[in-house]
C-alpha cells in the first residue's frame, strides 16, 4: 500500500480530535514478525500551538498467514485493557475495522523503546545476548511473565477470552481445549501430519494435566517477542509484543512455550538466557507458584505440536496461492526440525 502515510494521517486526525494537523513519516514495514503485518511510523501532531513527535506501530490483519483466520480485535482488547498496567505491554489506543481506512482491520500502539532480539544462533553460536545481558534479562523476563499471570482478568473484562473451566468443570479442561485447538488447526491445513505428530497427539489426549487455576496467558511469550534495551548488566526488558495467541488457561503453558527448544537459538539455554531450570526457578519465585514437571512435560510437547500446526497453516496458505510470502514456504523444510523435536520429547532421540 503506497499511500499508507496519507491514510494514516487522515485516521489519526479523526482519532485525535484536538489535533490541528498530523504529519506521518518514516513508515517502515517490519519482517521480524511472521504473522500480522507490522509497520512502524512517526507522527508529528500539531495541537494548541505545539508540535508533538510520537512513534507508533501499526498491526494489520494479513490476507492469509500462520494464524488464519485472523481477528486482531481480541488482541487489541487485551492490550487496551492492560495499557495502564505496569506490565510492559505497549499502550494501544486504537482499533479500526472499517476497510475504507486501510483495507483490513488494524490497531495502533505506542512504539516502545528497544529492539527485538532475533532468536537465531548468531555468528558465535551464542544466541542474541552476551553474558551480562543474559544475567540481567533472565530474571526480568521471568518476573514479567509472573506479573502477567497475576492479572485479574475478570476485573479487566477479559472473560470474553473464554475461561476453559467455564465450559467444563474438569480440572483438565484447559489442556484438553488446547490439544483440540491445535489438532483442529492441523486438520484444517489439509495436510496429513507426520506419524510422529499423530503419535504425540495421541499421547497428549491421554495425558491432560490437571490445573486448578485459570490465568491470563500471553500465548507466545518467548525470545523474539520481547523488546529489549541492551546495555550489559543494565539491559532492560521494555516490551512484550505479539499477543495474537492471548487466551486464558494453565500458567505452565506459557512457561513451557518460553523455555521450549523452539526458542533456544542454538544454545542449551531457555530463550538463550539461562538453563531452563534456572529460568523456571526465577519464574516460580516471582509467581510464588511451583512448576509441576509432569505438567511442564505435557505443555512442552504441545508447544512443539502447536508450532507444527502454525507452520502447516502457513504452508497451506502458500500452497493455495493466498499469499506470495515466501516465508510461509520455508516452513515446509523447517518442519523437519519440529518433527525431530517431537520425537526427542517423546524420548526417542537425544535433545541438545
Amino acid at each position, binding site marked *: 500500500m503506497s499511500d499508507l502515510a496519507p491514510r494514516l494521517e487522515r485516521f489519526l486526525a479523526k482519532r485525535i480530535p484536538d489535533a490541528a494537523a498530523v504529519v506521518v513519516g518514516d513508515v517502515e514495514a517490519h519482517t521480524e514478525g511472521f504473522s500480522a503485518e507490522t509497520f512502524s511510523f512517526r507522527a508529528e501532531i500539531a495541537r494548541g500551538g505545539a508540535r508533538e513527535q510520537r512513534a507508533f506501530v501499526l498491526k494489520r490483519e494479513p490476507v492469509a498467514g500462520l494464524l488464519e483466520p485472523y481477528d486482531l480485535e481480541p488482541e487489541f482488547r487485551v492490550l487496551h485493557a492492560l495499557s495502564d498496567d505496569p506490565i510492559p505491554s505497549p499502550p494501544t489506543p486504537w482499533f479500526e475495522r472499517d476497510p475504507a481506512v486501510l483495507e483490513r482491520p488494524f490497531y495502533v500502539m505506542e512504539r516502545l523503546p528497544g529492539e527485538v532480539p532475533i532468536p537465531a544462533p548468531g555468528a558465535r553460536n551464542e544466541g542474541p545476548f552476551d553474558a551480562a545481558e543474559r544475567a540481567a534479562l533472565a530474571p526480568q523476563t521471568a518476573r514479567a511473565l509472573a506479573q502477567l499471570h497475576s492479572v485479574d482478568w475478570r476485573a479487566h473484562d477479559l472473560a470474553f477470552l473464554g475461561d476453559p473451566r467455564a465450559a467444563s468443570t474438569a480440572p483438565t479442561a484447559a489442556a484438553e481445549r488446547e490439544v483440540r485447538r491445535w489438532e483442529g488447526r492441523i486438520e484444517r491445513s489439509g495436510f496429513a501430519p507426520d506419524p510422529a505428530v499423530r503419535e504425540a497427539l495421541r499421547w497428549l489426549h491421554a495425558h491432560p494435566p490437571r490445573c486448578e487455576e485459570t490465568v491470563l496467558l500471553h500465548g507466545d511469550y518467548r525470545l523474539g517477542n520481547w523488546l529489549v534495551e541492551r546495555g550489559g548488566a543494565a539491559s532492560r526488558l521494555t516490551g512484550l509484543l505479539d499477543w495474537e495467541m492471548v487466551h486464558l488457561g494453565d500458567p505452565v503453558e506459557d512457561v513451557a512455550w518460553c523455555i521450549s527448544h523452539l526458542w533456544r537459538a542454538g544454545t542449551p539455554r531457555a530463550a538463550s538466557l539461562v538453563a531452563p531450570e534456572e529460568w523456571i526457578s526465577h519464574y516460580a519465585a516471582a509467581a510464588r507458584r511451583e512448576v509441576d514437571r509432569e505438567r511442564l512435560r505435557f505443555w512442552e510437547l504441545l508447544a512443539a505440536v502447536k508450532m507444527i500446526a502454525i507452520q502447516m497453516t502457513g504452508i497451506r496458505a502458500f500452497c493455495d496461492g493466498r499469499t506470495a510470502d515466501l*516465508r510461509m514456504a520455508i516452513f515446509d523444510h523447517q518442519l523437519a526440525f519440529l518433527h525431530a523435536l517431537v520425537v526427542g520429547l517423546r524420548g526417542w532421540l537425544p535433545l541438545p
Partner: protein
Amino acid sequence: MRIPVETLLNGVARALIEQVLPHVSSRSARGQLYAAVDVLRNAARRLEWAAAPLVVEAESAEAALRSAAARLREAGEAARAGRIEARLEEWPAGPVAARAEAAREALAHAFAELESVPPALGDAIRPILGGHLAAQAVRALALLQPSLLEEISRG
C-alpha cells in the same frame, strides 16, 4: 515435503515478480530477475521431489513395522500383528511418494494398535516404531542447508 515442486517454484516466481521486482531499479538486475523467473517457471513442470529419501523412509518404516508385528505375535497378539502386516501387503508398488505415504499411515495405525495392548507390552514396542521416527528425523535434518532464518527475519 508438502508443497508440490511446481507450486513451490511458481510461488517463488510470483514472489519475485510481485515483491522484489518493484524494488529493483538497475536494468541489468531486472534482466537477471526476469531470467530467474523464466527459469523457475520452465523448471516447475519438469521437476519432482527426489525419490531416494522416500525409498529409504519406506524401507525403514517397513522394517520397524515388521519388527513390531513380530514382537506382538511373540506376546500372543497375533490378530494385531496380522493387521499391521496386512497393511504392509497393501502398500502400493509405486509411485514411491504413495508408498512413503502408505508407510506413514501404517505407522500411525500401528501406534493406534498399541493403545489397547497391555501397557508394558505397548511400552516395549513403541520404541521400535519410535526408533524409525528418530532415524527418519535425523535423515530429514541431514538434507537441510544451514538456516537463513536470521537473515530472513532481519531483512
